[in-house]
């Protein structure tokens, strides 16, 4: 009894250098992403901005004056989206990309998942700061409602962690999952309120708001950071329950199948 409890506490409280290690893994991965290019880390700034600029130019033609401050509208959605896309794609491959450590050293294997989620957070935080800087420059008001924003970052990280754990497990048995996931991402990209006004999608297909775990996060985070509104608390709760369930399935599949994963790579 006492031993079981001690073991449980041991897993909750990080051993000596666990947080340090997760952060080092994340930082190193971030460096690897950019180390081979000539511009290096500058890409972390340039790439999302160029992407947003392209979308902005193209979509301004298509939906001329539907949405005010359309550039910011896209930006606030796309930064959530880019985090989701990169984190889940990275998580899917994490066993392979971290094989050189997983195979040779004893440590808590979940750490590579945590670090993969953190790696992309660095880029995300860069995007958020650029977003806020641009709001200040263009004179859009930033309100105190911004303090709610971390709620959505945490929700998003939970979601991505859960999906990474599930996808990387499936990847062991079915390599095709990486192609399939690309297709799912493509679909999700268009059914989320990234470019469109949310009414356009959800008046037509109200179920999509709840079936898709990202929609609520995008809508609420945008309300908070761009419009200075309160989030829809029901939707926040719903999204946390959804992300929590996905994470629980992910942890379960990790515990059950992880050792097979290493054998098969």
């Amino acid at each position, binding site marked *: 009894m006492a031993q079981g409890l001690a073991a449980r506490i041991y897993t909750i409280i990080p*051993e*000596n*250098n666990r947080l*340090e*290690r997760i952060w*080092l*893994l994340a930082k*190193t991965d971030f*460096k*690897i992403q950019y*180390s*081979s290019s000539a511009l290096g880390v500058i890409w972390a700034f340039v790439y999302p901005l160029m992407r947003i600029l392209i979308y902005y130019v193209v979509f301004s033609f298509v939906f001329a004056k539907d949405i005010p401050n359309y550039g910011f509208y896209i930006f606030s959605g796309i930064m959530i989206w880019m985090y989701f896309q990169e984190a889940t794609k990275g998580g899917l491959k994490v066993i392979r990309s971290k094989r*050189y*450590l*997983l*195979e*040779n*050293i*004893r*440590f808590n294997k979940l*750490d590579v998942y945590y670090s993969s989620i953190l790696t992309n957070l660095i880029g995300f935080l860069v995007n958020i700061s650029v977003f806020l800087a641009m709001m200040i420059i263009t004179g859009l008001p930033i309100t105190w409602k911004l303090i709610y924003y971390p709620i959505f970052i945490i929700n998003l990280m939970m979601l991505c962690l859960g999906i990474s754990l599930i996808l990387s497990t499936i990847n062991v048995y079915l390599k095709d999952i990486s192609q399939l996931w690309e297709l799912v991402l493509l679909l999700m990209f268009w059914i989320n309120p990234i470019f469109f006004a949310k009414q356009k999608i959800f008046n037509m297909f109200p179920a999509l708001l709840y079936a898709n775990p990202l929609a609520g996060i995008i809508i609420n985070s945008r309300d908070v950071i761009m419009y200075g509104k309160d989030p829809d608390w029901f939707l926040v709760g719903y999204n946390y329950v959804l992300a929590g369930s996905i994470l629980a399935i992910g942890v379960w599949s990790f515990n059950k199948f992880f*050792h*097979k994963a*290493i*054998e098969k790579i």
Partner: protein
Amino acid sequence: MSEDNVVIRLENVSKTFTIRDKVSGNLLEKSWAFASGGNKRRIEAVKNINLEVKKGEFLGIVGANGCGKSTLIHLMTGVYKPDKGGIASIDGTYIRLSLGLGFNGQLTARENIYLNGSVMGVKISELNKNFRKIIEFAELQKFVNTKLKYFSRGMRARLAFAVAVHAEADIILMDEFFGGVGDERFKARSDEIFQKAFVNGRTIVHVSHNMRTIKQYADRVVLLHEGECRGIGSPDEILDLYRETIKVRRLSMREE
């Protein structure tokens, strides 16, 4: 830790892999093979091994190629899970050293040292203290900020060994680690370390074809033959047995 100081314990450990061979032929034949499992094969890599490694022991593992030595190492570290009925446990921090693995080629020597050390559980402040020692031991002073992809096999081996020694892993598992690398000077130094490891109570599991090292340092040697344990005993005993099995094998191959 258990009272008898056993750090690695294997009980009735077997490992069977199920693999699928690639089917040649048209799509119909391929899908039939997939659905029926006709291209599946079971390979018994390791069969019913019972083994205990004590703290501070130097255990040698010998055997012909493909006899399951590497699989056994993976079973010891828990990277592979044994088949049903077998129990494998390891107690303490470990690092497995094998050529070509363990480092990321995109990272510099410095980054690899910090990453490996940290993953093994060493604090960054500790690594800062030991960093010079590691580099000097590996004799890589001129390549601290060079990416590992430009390193030769010998340089990688030196670095891995230096990290393992200074990060103070309780158990070091070497999988054909010195297979033809390292000049005499480096070998002499690793000899030194082997001797020191006893003093520090480090446990070493050493898979090798280098009979000299095994003979000189191993307390016990395991002989594997086609996944089975053919004998555990003193180096002299087992190495004789090993030579015999090789002879028998050659003869039987000739007869076939």
